[in-house]
């Protein structure tokens, strides 16, 4: 039986992990991920989870231990944030190249220096090319549900790709919401025991893993990995449809639209800011302004087809980036803009950079973004809620 609880995003993730019955968790604490690993530790120490919890000495070893346990077929979870994600980043392409279905929560946080513990999405952008599925969630319920869905996705033998669930630091990790915790039996039937992939180490047919491949073979391994990544779209949709049948909730596929169908202008968001943007869209609609919203749930693989379809005939598109690629523009913008160009989109695109280092993104800021879209005015790249002129 499911039950309702008042949980923050970290706890929701921990519940999702508990219900997914991982064999191994290897994690190192870092703000704002700590409450997730504390909760998981207490589940293990209280005997509520039957799981090996490895108290590693660093994020680098959290990922390395995860590589070890996943390479023998154990369902494996880890969690990190910010500097920790960067510290373990050597292991990320390592795990994806070896096709290990590890699931990780990344509590999105800014990158030093200056030191700052608050939320933006710079950390995830640093590792966008690591070969992991990069998923962004909007609220605590989606965080819990996507842990369960992510194991199913990563472990699918057509996919065999690790998944990073991005949960905005503090805004989601530390904010309490009403969350439905599904019953264990329901989760067990939705997410059965992991089926060991044939390339993993095993006693019957010993394997060498994380091997070397010279210039005559390496490229084929990598292109195969690249192509398999595109299978995520279909699998994610199919998993979500099954999820809805079992749990009565759906989160959609790679991207989701909100009042986008007849929209003149559209804002593209990732993660928790989507909630604020929804409120602004509703109030603009009340004023007769045809504003719409597209939430990107996946940044890798990048859903070019879905995005183009959702944006439709909107005259201008703004991309909200909680990150910046120094000397260029926001990274989500680079991806969306390139994708829309390839699809032949003719409208204007804007890049709205906001929320760095946990700076608030207010309703007023989002209204300003829509004004810029409606009037198609100003620079392509614009900054919001700046404290002083630079």
């Amino acid at each position, binding site marked *: 039986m499911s039950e309702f609880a008042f949980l923050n995003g970290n706890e929701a993730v921990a519940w999702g992990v508990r219900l997914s019955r991982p064999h191994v968790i290897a994690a190192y604490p870092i703000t704002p991920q700590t409450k997730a690993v504390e909760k998981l530790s207490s589940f293990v120490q209280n005997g509520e989870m039957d799981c090996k919890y490895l108290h590693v*000495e660093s994020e680098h070893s959290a990922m390395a231990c995860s590589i070890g346990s996943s390479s023998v077929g154990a369902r494996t979870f880890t969690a990190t944030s910010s500097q920790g994600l960067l510290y373990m980043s*050597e292991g990320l392409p390592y795990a994806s190249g070896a096709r290990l279905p590890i699931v990780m929560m990344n509590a999105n946080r800014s990158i030093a220096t200056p030191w700052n513990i608050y939320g933006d999405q710079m950390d995830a952008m640093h590792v966008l090319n690591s070969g992991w599925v990069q998923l962004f969630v909007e609220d605590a319920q989606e965080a819990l549900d996507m842990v369960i869905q992510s194991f199913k996705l990563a472990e699918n033998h057509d996919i065999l790709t690790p998944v990073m669930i991005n949960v905005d630091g503090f805004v989601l990790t530390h904010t309490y919401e009403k969350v439905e915790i599904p019953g264990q039996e329901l989760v067990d039937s939705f997410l059965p025991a992991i089926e060991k992939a044939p390339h993993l180490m095993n006693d019957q047919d010993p394997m*060498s893993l*994380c*091997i*070397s491949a010279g210039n005559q073979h390496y490229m084929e391994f990598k292109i195969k990995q690249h192509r398999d990544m595109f299978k995520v779209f279909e699998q994610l949709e199919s998993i979500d449809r099954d999820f809805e049948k079992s749990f009565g909730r759906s989160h959609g596929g790679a991207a989701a639209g909100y009042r986008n169908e007849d929209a003149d202008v559209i804002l593209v968001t990732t993660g928790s800011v989507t909630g604020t943007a929804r409120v602004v869209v509703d109030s603009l609609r009340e004023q007769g302004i045809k504003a719409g919203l597209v939430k990107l749930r996946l940044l890798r693989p990048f859903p070019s087809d879905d995005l183009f379809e959702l944006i439709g005939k909107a005259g201008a598109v703004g991309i909200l980036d909680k990150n910046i690629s120094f000397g260029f523009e926001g990274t989500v913008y680079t991806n969306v803009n390139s994708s829309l160009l390839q699809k032949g989109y003719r409208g204007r695109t804007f890049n709205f950079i906001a929320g760095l280092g946990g700076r608030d993104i207010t309703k007023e800021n989002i209204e300003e973004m829509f004004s810029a879209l409606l009037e198609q005015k100003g620079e392509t790249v614009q900054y919001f809620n700046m404290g002083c002129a630079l």
Partner: protein
Amino acid sequence: MIKKLNARNIDAKECFYGHKACGGCGESLALRLALKVLGEEAYLSLPAGCMAAVSFIYPNMAFKNNAVITPFASTAAVATGIAAGLEALGKEAPLSVGFAGDGGTADIGIQSLSGAIDRGEKFIYICTDNEAYMNTGIQKSGLTPFGAATTTTPAGKAIHGCVTEKKNMFEIAAAHGISYAATASIGYPEDFLNKVQKAKECDGPAYIHIYTPCPTGWGHGSEITVDLAKEVVDTGLWFLAEYENGEFRLNKKPENFKPVADHLKRQARFRHLSEIEITQIEEMRDRKWEKMLKNWG
């Protein structure tokens, strides 16, 4: 009582063959011997380094065992991850073994090794020490001995090779209160085999540090690898010892050391050394032995 292993009763089965290691490679001999004790059931973790570079080249795999190349810093972390995974999947008494060189152990891998020993999980770590980064072309590591010429500590006019002494990895491992630690040399293979056996039998983490000459890196004939590995113990420049139940024990106490100069001159990396520097090396050796005999005697 565990049966003592020797050349007559060890397993004839080979678990490591068809690799591309240099002729006379000490490390590959250590792996071959260790696997005769560990058996093909053992899961192996090796970082990027010589032994990984010569044995995992797609599509030719040289290990009969399950084996994985780990990130350079992560031998012990991956090995304990494998152990945890196997245990959680219900395998009885899984055996997970890491093999790493001197740089992979004493430098870049020391943090993950320390963390893994600290967790107290059952795993075996074997450091195959050839005293420099050989895979990348003989650069100095934390285990390069005083005086040795490497490509980053060349025998220059102002500085004659490596100016630092080897880190005491054996004692560092022991200082964690590890279940079992030992030093060994491929020059004393029976001693090594029996130490691997002890490591296999013990309940918690075990660390073995084995001296493995490298003809390519040290500049000696491939036919004298084993001889040098024996001689280094007989000169007192390396030692055979164990740490068990919280106590250190010397396995071999030479009455008289063989001459150091003759031993060093057989290796191109030491040929530049002056008499004064050789005397310094003897003094370092004597200080070490004085301490070991006093504390571990």
